[in-house]
């Protein structure tokens, strides 16, 4: 059985807007799955339902066993502006009541893996947009999640930062064997990162294509990558 299965999930907002209808998909253990779709199609809502931050109005959301430990990375870095990078990364560990010394070490290690070892005492305002996002990812990884949910985390970044973070994320997810559900509206990003791309319809969102991409390393400028990218783009642009 898959790690997670959504079956005919529906979600309606208080103002009557139907965000999701008949949303069904599965995610396997260790998979990197992207949810791709136009703005407002309900991608983020689906992520919030998976995180347990909202409940579906209809349909079911089933976990293989219990819900695994989750990490969440928002579109904005969502850091505490009054706390330095290390304290921000330590937050989930403090909440889990992990001993101070161990929490410091784990948070420091997570920052180092994101290339920010020398910025542990920097406040968010002293960091660039890309660095803040790295702190946000370090915070999610420090808690050692089994499932990482990411809601368009790199949408606001410049292209070099975005590509650098894509590479790091891919490496870290593989090293830690983390299952990732990644929301994006970038065809290139989804194709580069994912094992599978789930293409969603405009609102109310449901899956209109489930594309498995060839395994193995990807070169952004290779013909094979361009071909995969075209498959994903065609599915996205195909009328529903």
């Amino acid at each position, binding site marked *: 059985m898959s790690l997670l299965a959504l079956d005919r999930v529906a979600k309606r907002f208080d103002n009557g807007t139907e965000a999701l209808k008949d949303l069904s998909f599965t995610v396997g253990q260790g998979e990197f799955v992207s949810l791709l779709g136009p703005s407002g199609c309900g991608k983020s809502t689906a992520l919030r339902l998976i995180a347990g931050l909202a409940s579906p109005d209809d349909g079911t959301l089933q976990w293989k066993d219990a819900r695994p430990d989750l990490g*969440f990375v928002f579109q904005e870095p969502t850091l505490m502006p*009054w706390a330095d990078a290390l304290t921000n990364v330590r937050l989930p560990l403090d909440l889990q009541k992990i001993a101070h010394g161990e929490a410091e070490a784990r948070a420091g290690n997570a920052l180092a893996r994101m290339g920010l070892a020398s910025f542990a005492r920097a406040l968010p305002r002293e960091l660039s947009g890309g660095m803040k996002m790295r702190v946000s990812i370090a915070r999610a990884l420090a808690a050692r999640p089994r499932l990482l949910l990411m809601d368009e985390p790199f949408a606001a970044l410049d292209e070099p930062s975005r590509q650098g973070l894509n590479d790091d994320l891919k490496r870290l997810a593989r090293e830690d064997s983390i299952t990732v559900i990644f929301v994006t509206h970038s065809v290139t990003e989804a194709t580069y990162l994912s094992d599978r791309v789930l293409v969603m319809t405009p609102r109310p969102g449901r899956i209109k294509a489930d594309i498995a991409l060839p395994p193995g390393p990807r070169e952004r400028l290779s013909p094979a990558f361009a071909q995969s990218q075209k498959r994903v783009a065609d599915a996205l642009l195909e009328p529903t």
Partner: protein
Amino acid sequence: MKRAASLLLPLLLGLALLGLWEGVVAVRHIPPYVLPAPSAIARALIANFASLMLSLLSTLTVTLEGFAAALVAGVGLAIAFSQSRTLERMLYPYAVVLQVTPVVAIAPLILIWVGFERIDLALALIAALVAFFPILSNTTLGLKSADFHLIDLMRLYGASRWQILWRVRLPSALPYLLGAMKIAGGLSLIGAVVAEFVAGSGTATGLAWRIVEAGNRLEIATLFAALLLLALLGIALFAGFSLLEWALLRRWHESALRPQP
């Protein structure tokens, strides 16, 4: 250079106005019981320095007691509101009623209820009433203005309501609270002065009562000296709270940061 100018310019303007005032009083022979010259006010201040300082201390004590009570009640109730929308819906209208009812109208009642034998308590209570609402209102707004994604994240990691309050809501509300404290500091002084006016002879000993007393005796220079001390007290309170705001926010909050050149 700009910093020196921003200090010097108002000082020079003040000195020029004082000179003009002194000159007009001398040239027009304005009697001291109508408008005393600044030099006469300075002489009155020196002559009554000890007693005026005691009055200042009395007003300052009432002001700070009232402010402290308003701070505890305002922040406490704002925290309660942030934890219970029902409580907020129930109590907030009454807080507004308290705010819009003129304190001069309530002061005599409070004096009667608390009793003239506990006049200091009554005065502090009136000062607290005036200062309470800005603290409640701003802190409530600040507690609600915390980044909701950060709150979601805390929930995701299993944080309790109190952990969310302590780690996210209260630090987020700090700039709002400090802004309110600057307003409330001045308002508690106004409350203390109003309370002293209402309490009247034989009970209050603060600067407001000295103003009434000097007015009744036509000692206008002493009246001005007391007024000057009140103004300086207000400025000192504002400066103190501004310093506190700077100390707590200077490293991270937008309001205290200077744009990079």
